[in-house]
């Protein structure tokens, strides 16, 4: 067993874990943060994507012990119990989800992408190549993310 200490959604967490515990299972079973979904568990589907130290990573391909000392953000960090973020609102208005299984992972990857500047539609599509969605056909997801790029520009970068 190994003791780890990390920040999850702004909260300091200290736990003793088995080295083989995946970050996804630590978040879901250990902390009850079930917004992070588990799909394939071998790095193909992207459903488990979370932010680790500000960049998107596959939660199923990171051991919890590797996140020791790090800062993890999950889909629960976006809106919490408050109003939806602009990106989440955009997913809703563009019908960018149906069953919603892939949505938390895509929201986190898109959050990172948008934080890096003003991605082109091509860059959004390239980012989405790491995520499987079996409902939407992807186009509404690309539209939803692209709309946030435009509104950021129009808003002069304001929040």
């Amino acid at each position: 067993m190994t003791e780890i200490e990390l920040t999850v959604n702004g909260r300091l967490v200290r736990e003793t874990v088995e080295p083989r515990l995946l970050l996804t299972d630590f978040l879901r079973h250990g902390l009850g943060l079930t917004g992070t979904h588990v799909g394939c568990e071998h790095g193909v589907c992207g459903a488990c994507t979370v932010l680790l130290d500000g960049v998107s990573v596959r939660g199923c391909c990171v051991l919890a012990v590797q996140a020791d000392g790090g800062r993890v953000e999950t889909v629960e960090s976006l809106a919490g119990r408050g109003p939806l973020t602009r990106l989440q609102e955009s997913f809703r208005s563009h019908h960018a989800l149906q069953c919603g299984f892939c949505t938390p992972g895509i929201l986190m990857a898109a959050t990172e992408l948008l934080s890096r500047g003003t991605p082109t539609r091509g860059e959004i599509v390239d980012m989405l190549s790491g995520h499987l969605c079996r409902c939407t056909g992807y186009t509404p997801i690309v539209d939803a993310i692209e709309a946030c790029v435009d509104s950021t520009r129009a808003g002069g970068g304001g929040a």
Partner: protein
Amino acid sequence: MKPAPFAYTRPESLAEALAALADGGEDAKPIAGGQSLVPALNLRLVRPTLLVDLARAGLDGVAANGVLRVGATVRQAALGREERAHPLVRAALPYVGHVVTRNRGTVGGSIAHADGAAELPLCLVALDGTVVVDGPDGRRTMAAGDFFVTHFSTALAPGELVVETTWPLRKVDEACAFEEIALRAGDFAQSMVAVVLRRDDAGVVTAASVAVGAATDRPTRLPGVEALLVGSSGADAAADAGALAATLVDPPESIHASARYLRAVTGALTARAVERAS
């Protein structure tokens, strides 16, 4: 699935990491980004008894002094943003997995894993880079062409670690191109080709590097194609270079593609890369 149990240690220096690997014996494995290893753990394709995490081993530096020296645990995404990196590397990196895996996956990890369909090993061989390894018998530097043996197999001795790779910088008379075909964006390549050409003032090719991967079991230079290109303009010999390349590879058949198709694709990618390297 979930990994089988293992012990875990995260040393604070390279010396401690090497000692931990030596103590752990043949079932100890180093872990860096884990983007190949953790999926293999999850599927229980590998069952190490000890993982030695290199995150704090001090292997994350990048320096340029004649060549670009890239520490083993430098993230692939960081290399992609590195302006001093050879344009061939920057052209190939978008093909390495996905944004999310490049954020975590390391340069040294990709080299040491030695997947025959991996882009970074191909670029290192095409550019005549080197692999610096450290281990029980001390530090040594190997030519990239000598490092890769076959799929997932390298010249690393037991207990040795890749600590750094060195990448030649772009020469002023160089042009390059990278071409790849895969079933889906970000998926493993079916075939890929890297071409680097040097030309004199008259536009005549004076030196050529042509390397193919995925259709071969390791990054493979094609000296016959390189010789064919020297003395040409590049573009005027592209079709011949492709036709010759297609005869020089012997790809394994799979459910996705016949060997004949993969040979044809490798030829087409070679011709295209030669044409674009101008």
